[in-house]
């Protein structure tokens, strides 16, 4: 700590778990928007990742509120946010946005898309698994072409509703920070937009990586057309995201309001590594350069795969750093602009590094279970030929 801090600013209230929360939510929104590309905008190339994107979104969405629960002193009271919500509370309203997105969009879309598989699996499985699939059919085994056509139509409408819902979900996370008018590091109307685009970037990068990793684990060849298309979308959204962040930066520098000296000092000292080096150079400029290279020069497939993998990992690191710099950075300086504090991450504490790492692994474990229950691989599904036959 240096200079003058008000007593309530010395210790950070929001730690690494609150960094994780927008990061996880962002991955959900991004993965879903990638899935919707295929469904609504008919980008056929990304079809191999459609179901994987949906399951990834679901796995991460289930985990997204857990860091918040760990942060609360009385997590059991969080339910009251649904029972007696206060309209002036941004967080209470977010609970409903979250629930809407989870139940009305994601679960329904996955159910409709998998219904044919669920019915077939319910008919062919025994024991607990059979019971699970039979429960998932809701007692309806009708997979006639007419019923599936209706499913397809309804699924399309759900995705259409899902896109603004995904925008709302992550825009809202940005709003929660952007609406804190007492904090000049957060308070900007650009925050929801920046969060939204960075969410799309991180979600697309995650699905790209997951597709490559799962293909390698299953020892099947990746569809390069699919990979190239996803990389192209990653590049485009990343350019928009970077442009927005630079717009915010230039705006702040030009405005140079009363907080500027303090924030500028922070970026040059305490946030230098995490913001300038990791977020901007390593996590933004490097993957952008790599991705733009693949757009300009035609590399062999193996090289492209490697470049995409490196660019995706760097992107995820960069977006995590961005969340870190927003959440932690916003609490390192005093509202008096006269002092700065430091953040020390605990390890085996309720809000320490260990639970954060565990919460980062958990969605992958959930995704593994989801993939076991609802295999997303089209080529392995015995029902694919028929599904395509209906179109």
């Amino acid at each position, binding site marked *: 700590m240096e200079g*003058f801090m*008000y*007593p309530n600013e010395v210790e950070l209230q929001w730690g690494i778990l609150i960094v994780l929360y927008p990061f996880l939510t962002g991955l959900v929104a991004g993965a879903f928007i990638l899935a919707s590309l295929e469904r609504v905008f008919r980008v056929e190339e990304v079809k191999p990742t459609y179901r994987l994107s949906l399951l990834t979104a679901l796995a991460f969405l289930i985990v997204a509120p857990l860091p918040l629960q760990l942060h609360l002193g009385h997590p059991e009271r969080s339910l009251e946010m*649904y*029972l*007696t919500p*206060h309209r002036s509370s941004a967080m209470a309203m977010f609970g409903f946005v979250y629930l809407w997105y989870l*139940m009305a969009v994601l679960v*329904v879309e996955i*159910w409709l898309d998998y*219904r044919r598989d669920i019915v077939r699996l319910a008919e062919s499985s025994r024991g607990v698994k059979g019971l699970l699939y039979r429960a998932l*059919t*809701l*007692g*309806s085994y*009708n997979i*006639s072409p*007419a*019923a599936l056509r*209706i499913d397809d139509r*309804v699924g399309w409408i759900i995705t259409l509703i899902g896109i603004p819902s995904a925008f709302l979900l992550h825009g809202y996370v940005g709003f929660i920070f952007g609406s804190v008018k007492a904090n000049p590091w957060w308070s900007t109307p650009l925050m929801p937009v920046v969060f939204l685009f960075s969410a799309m970037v991180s979600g697309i990068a995650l699905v790209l990586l997951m597709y490559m990793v799962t293909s390698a684990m299953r020892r099947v060849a990746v569809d390069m057309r699919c990979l190239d298309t996803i990389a192209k979308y990653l590049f485009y959204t990343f350019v928009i995201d970077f442009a927005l962040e630079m717009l915010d930066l230039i705006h702040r520098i030009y405005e140079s309001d009363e907080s500027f000296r303090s924030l500028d000092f922070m970026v040059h000292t305490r946030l230098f590594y995490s913001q300038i080096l990791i977020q901007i150079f390593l996590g933004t400029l490097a993957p952008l350069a790599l991705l733009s290279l693949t757009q300009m020069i035609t590399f062999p497939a193996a090289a492209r795969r490697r470049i995409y993998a490196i660019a995706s990992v760097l992107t995820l690191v960069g977006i995590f750093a961005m969340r870190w710099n927003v959440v932690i950075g916003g609490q390192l300086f005093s509202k*008096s602009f006269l002092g700065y504090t430091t953040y020390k991450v605990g390890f085996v504490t309720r809000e320490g590094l260990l639970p954060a790492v565990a919460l980062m692994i958990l969605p992958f474990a959930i995704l593994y279970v989801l993939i076991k229950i609802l295999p997303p691989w089209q080529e392995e599904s015995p029902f694919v030929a028929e599904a395509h036959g209906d179109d």
Partner: protein
Amino acid sequence: MGEFKDIAHLIRLAGVFLLGLIFFLVFRSVTIPKSFGRYGPFRGAALVELSSRPLSFAGHAACENCHPDVAALKANGVHKSLNCESCHGPLAKHADDPGNVKPVLPDVAQLCIRCHSENIAKPAGFPQVNAKEHSGGQACNTCHQPHSPGFDAGGKK
């Protein structure tokens, strides 16, 4: 009829959601206290419960009844806006039974620095000291008269 058969599963799904909604509404009506929201976003009955709890503070009028000399001294000093029980603690029991319940005098070494320890965030005109350097461990009321601190408060400043 055939068309209805093809959307039967969607109706079942809607049914599941409806059941969920009914469960939510029932759960809500069972768990939310009846008086919630009567005056605002809190349990209205809480006000009655709180007001029925025994009083801890007697209020400065009760103090001034029996201690008019202190009240007069305090009325002209810089501490005039402070309530007696801000420093002496809650004394309703003492006010009810002054003969048997004797209040313990506050520990000045702890009490005064609560407000008067040096801090750059305090207004420059507010009296504030670094207690160790200022008194070298002596109790504040060795020199200061707590009920009316200042230079003109008879003997002690």
